[in-house]
């Protein structure tokens, strides 16, 4: 095989090596370093550099270089390079403004109408001149390098935009939750006895949903439903909400409108979570169909509705009301247990007990229910009670 043929084969292999390196899964800088070695190894250049054009800063950045003095590379002006033929190698001695000490060939890198950077090479170690064939090969290589740089630049731009979008999304989410909290505060402010009730129902419901294995998106949805479940009370008079004496049938009918009003308000909001409207609408339904507003029963009630219903009642029982003192936790749990199957769901009750038991035993990193309960509660007694309920309900659930 003659030398020319061998050289042609070597160059072809180098192109294949370049293709392999620039399409590898390596990190960008490793990829460019390997590509740079392929180029310097192909042309026997002892010095070289790949420069990338930063469109924002309007300057050239050295991606990789060998043998050149950084200050010399900084003398290159992107505007002057961009005026040269796209991806066409030019001999530095022919273009005085390209003079970089030690550089012999410079290739401006372009993709379509976009100036991407530049490739510089010194003379060959063998002192042989660059042949027209060398320059043709360099033109092909430059095109490949330009495409790689452009892809990376697009990827970086996309990553930056994605990061910015995520930041904006998080900011909007914070604002969204802030608005919901303001709503909840407005609801709770109407009734001196239900301060932070919406906030607690949101937390309890989320804690139960998490224990049930819901995904984070759906947990956030029930959290929001918890915040808004009583939003319809904004349309009920303060006098009625704060009435100490028993309600007349008319007053009771009026106050019961709040869940439908909550639904009307909630439907005006385009929630990213499913069933929020359903959960706020039916949080006063019962399993036996004796609840309101629609007297739905059993299968018509979603898990979300059953969770909010239980969380709402548990908080109502353990909070002071105008017409009664607050119940202690043991009494509230016993009351909820008495109403299983008629009003509340066994499975959800079991999960509530498990969460509370875990919180008492310090098994959950961020307790959601326990911090809101009476500080004077005897946790040993509550824990024993919970263990009993859990055992009993687990057995019933297994049998079912």
């Amino acid at each position: 095989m003659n030398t020319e043929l061998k050289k042609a084969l070597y160059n072809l292999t180098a192109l294949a090596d370049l293709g392999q390196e620039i399409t590898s899964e390596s990190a960008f800088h490793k990829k460019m370093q390997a590509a740079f070695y392929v180029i310097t190894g192909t042309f026997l250049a002892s010095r070289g550099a790949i420069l990338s054009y930063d469109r924002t800063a309007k300057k050239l950045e050295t991606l990789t270089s060998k043998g050149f003095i950084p200050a010399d590379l900084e003398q290159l002006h992107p505007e002057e390079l961009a005026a040269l033929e796209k991806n066409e190698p030019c001999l530095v001695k022919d273009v005085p403004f390209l003079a970089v000490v030690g550089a012999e060939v410079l290739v401006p890198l372009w993709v379509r109408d976009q100036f991407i950077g530049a490739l510089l090479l010194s003379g060959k170690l063998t002192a042989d001149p660059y042949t027209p064939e060398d320059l043709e090969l360099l033109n092909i290589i430059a095109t490949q390098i330009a495409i790689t740089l452009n892809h990376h630049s697009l990827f970086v731009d996309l990553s930056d935009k994605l990061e910015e979008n995520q930041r904006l999304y998080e900011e909007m989410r914070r604002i969204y939750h802030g608005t919901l909290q303001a709503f909840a505060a407005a609801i709770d402010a109407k009734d001196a006895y239900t301060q932070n009730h919406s906030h607690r129902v949101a937390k309890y419901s989320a804690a139960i949903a998490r224990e049930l294995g819901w995904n984070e998106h759906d947990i956030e949805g029930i959290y929001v439903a918890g915040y808004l479940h009583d939003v319809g009370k904004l349309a009920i008079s303060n006098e009625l909400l704060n009435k100490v004496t028993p309600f007349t049938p008319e007053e009771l009918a009026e106050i019961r409108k709040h869940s439908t009003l909550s639904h009307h308000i909630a439907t005006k909001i385009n929630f990213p979570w499913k069933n929020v409207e359903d959960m706020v609408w039916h949080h006063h339904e019962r399993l036996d169909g004796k609840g309101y507003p629609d007297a739905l029963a059993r299968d018509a009630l979603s898990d979300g509705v059953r969770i909010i219903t239980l969380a709402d009642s548990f908080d109502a029982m353990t909070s002071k009301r105008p017409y009664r003192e607050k119940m202690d936790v043991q009494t509230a749990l016993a009351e909820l247990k008495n109403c299983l199957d008629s009003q509340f769901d066994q499975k959800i009750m079991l999960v509530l007990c498990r969460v509370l038991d875990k919180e008492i035993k310090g098994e959950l990193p961020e307790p959601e229910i326990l911090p809101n309960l009476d500080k004077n509660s005897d946790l040993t007694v509550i824990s024993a009670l919970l263990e009993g309920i859990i055992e009993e309900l687990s057995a019933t659930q297994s049998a079912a």
Partner: protein
Amino acid sequence: MKPAQFSVTSKLVGDAAIIYPKGYLNNLSGESLVNECGIYIGRGITKIVVNFSETDLINSIGISLLLQIMEDLRNIRGTICCTNMSKFLRDTFEMLGLLQHMVVFPVESDAIAYLKAQTT
């Protein structure tokens, strides 16, 4: 079959460093060859023998790395000897015109004898 990971060992014989690259010299792991030589050059060693008995193949990346060692030695007026080269390696170096810039011996002991004679 995936080629074995490239590795380098070395030893000092008199005032010459003997470098043993092992594996296909075709990717960034070959930088260890440059680093190994750089350590000796940094210690003032100007004579380097690269024994290629366990490196049959080289590509443009390997050539680039070898150029770097040759350039570094040239800058300190040092000598690079290459020994135990496969036919492929020798043909590649010859085709690229690199043989004029290194001293080639069939075996390592010849290179050591040559460098020793240079000292005396």
